[in-house]
């Protein structure tokens, strides 16, 4: 009898969760309809919509990062490099070659994926911290490349894109991509491919011994995540209408992505979504009053979270499929 009630309870929770998710999605889809536009008063203002768009982009970026770092355990400190490649693809093609927006997204996605496969082939042989630092190095190197190839990238002074202030369009693009990406990763986590990724995280030599082509799995996952981040980069560049090496290859973007994932729960699918949402809520509500301090607070937050909440919010909620940050590299340092 008891198992029966527990099963019903489980079904009920799953049903409630599904309904909640549907309501949330419907709300997000309908939101721009009540926003102010062209002088018309709305329930929410333009800057809220802008900030929500940024949040949705962070959801996608954090999910991509989490796909690599959370599922395969390769902690990547250079993922923003692929965002940057996407941003520069869109920036260069639109401002220098006069391309329309959407084809540039495809170019950005492809160039990010190709770069990821090339960089990943080299760096993914490295273990633990060596991989992380090599990626951090690749990221810094790409930033300098963007600075020196002035004829192409505009160098330090940057590039200005044709301005286009259609806030709802960017909002829907970001929302669509976030939903797609999260659904894709959720599905992939349950497939054989996802299990192979988890196998790499838990015991790479063991997975290899059982016939998993670890190089292929790692590189494919790396390329997929990079491709998605490249698209985000392109959208971000067009929405921002201006790019230069320092705002595209921003150090604090890496930390933002890492915070969102670790806060929500590294290696869980819902983690980065919850983390990104919370981070934006914190930023708007708590830090609006001390703007200059917000990166200082972010640094503190990362330190505090790693020490106090290593499994993230999803871990608190009882999801055990994630990765305890304290254990992420333990296998490389076992005696």
């Amino acid at each position, binding site marked *: 009898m008891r198992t029966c009630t527990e099963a019903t309870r489980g079904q009920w929770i799953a049903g409630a969760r599904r309904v909640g998710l549907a309501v949330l999605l419907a709300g997000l889809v309908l939101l721009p309809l009540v926003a102010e536009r062209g002088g018309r008063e709305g329930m929410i203002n333009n800057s809220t919509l802008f900030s929500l768009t940024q949040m949705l982009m962070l959801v996608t970026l954090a999910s991509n990062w989490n796909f690599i770092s959370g599922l395969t355990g390769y*902690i990547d*400190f250079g993922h923003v490099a692929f965002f940057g490649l996407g941003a520069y693809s869109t920036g260069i093609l639109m401002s220098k070659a006069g391309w329309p927006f959407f084809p540039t997204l495809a170019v950005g996605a492809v160039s990010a994926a190709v770069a990821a496969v090339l960089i990943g082939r*080299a*760096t993914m*042989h*490295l*273990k*633990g*911290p*060596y991989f*992380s*630092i*090599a990626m*951090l*190095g*690749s990221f*810094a*190197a790409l930033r*300098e*490349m963007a*600075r*020196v190839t002035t004829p192409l990238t505009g160098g330090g002074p940057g590039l200005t894109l044709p301005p286009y202030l259609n806030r709802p369009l960017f909002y829907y693009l970001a929302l669509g991509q976030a939903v797609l990406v999260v659904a894709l990763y959720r599905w992939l986590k349950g497939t054989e491919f996802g299990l192979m990724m988890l196998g790499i995280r838990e015991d790479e030599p063991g997975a290899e011994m059982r016939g998993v082509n670890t190089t292929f799995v790692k590189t494919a996952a790396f390329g997929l995540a990079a491709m998605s981040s490249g698209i985000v980069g392109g959208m971000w560049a067009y929405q921002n209408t201006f790019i230069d090496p320092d705002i595209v290859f921003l*150090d*604090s973007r890496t*930390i933002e992505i*890492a915070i969102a994932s*670790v806060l929500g729960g590294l290696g869980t699918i819902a983690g980065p979504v919850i983390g990104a949402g919370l981070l934006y809520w914190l930023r708007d509500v708590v830090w609006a009053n001390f703007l*200059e*301090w917000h*990166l*200082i607070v*972010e*640094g*503190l*937050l*990362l*330190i505090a979270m*790693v*020490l106090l909440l*290593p499994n993230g919010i999803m871990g608190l909620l009882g999801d055990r499929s994630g990765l305890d*940050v*304290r*254990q*992420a*590299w*333990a296998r*490389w*340092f*076992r*005696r």
Partner: protein
Amino acid sequence: MTTFLQALVNTIMLGGFYALMVMGFSLIWGVMGVINLAHGEFVVMGAYLTWFLNRHAGWEPFATIIVVLPVMFAFGYLLQRLLINRIVDRPPLVSLLVTYGLSILIANSLKLAFTGTPRTVTTSLGGFWRVAEVTIPSVKTFDLILALAMMATLSLLLRRTRLGKAIRAAAQNRRAARMVGVEIGSVFAVTFGIGIALTGTAGILFSLTQPVAPFVGLPLTLRAFAITTMSGLGNIGGALLGSMALAAVEVYIGTYVPRVGTNLGLVATFVVLVVILITRPQGLFGGLPSAEQQ
């Protein structure tokens, strides 16, 4: 030929700075297994301290060492006691994330305190000597001498004193060191203090050769990492060689590639780093414990 010799002189000067900078990083990594991603920010902190005393009290930059050393030591000691001690026994991802958070924290605090304007120090020791068409700037020569002196001191400290013995024991085997009566907690705190003090001193040299700004730390951290991986942990001679090698790559690219060479030097650093990591995971001169051993 003159260009080549000039680049060689520049390499030795830059290599001296890198060698001093990398000491603290290598010491902290070697002794407590913490990869300190806030390392470059400590260099910048030292540089700001020097700039502050130089600008507002009119001190000669080299003289600020009597303030920079104790202040940075105290800062490092406290930081280890309050924060790093909690992450020493955890896997390195924790220390990487925590020190990365720390680096963002320090860089932005510095920006808040000193604004983003690049600052330069003034010194009365400027000028240069000319030896057969080659320019030898005097400030950089004193930099080099100071760096070598600091490294010799560290080497003596580690090899000839009781404290040095305790530090080396703690690095080799924590548990055994504890068993023979080494108080690991305070040895770690003192080691971290010494590492940060050395790093702060590197900041003095930095302020004398480049403008100081809040966000110049990350490339320095990456260079420290590259040199340490090349030369092995706690290997002072190796670190000197590795620093010279990296400096040579940067300077020669900067000299022979027109206009963009200086920026490409940084790119080259990372290419070197990745190539070395892939081909020689134990470091060029041995000594770097493989990940499993640590």
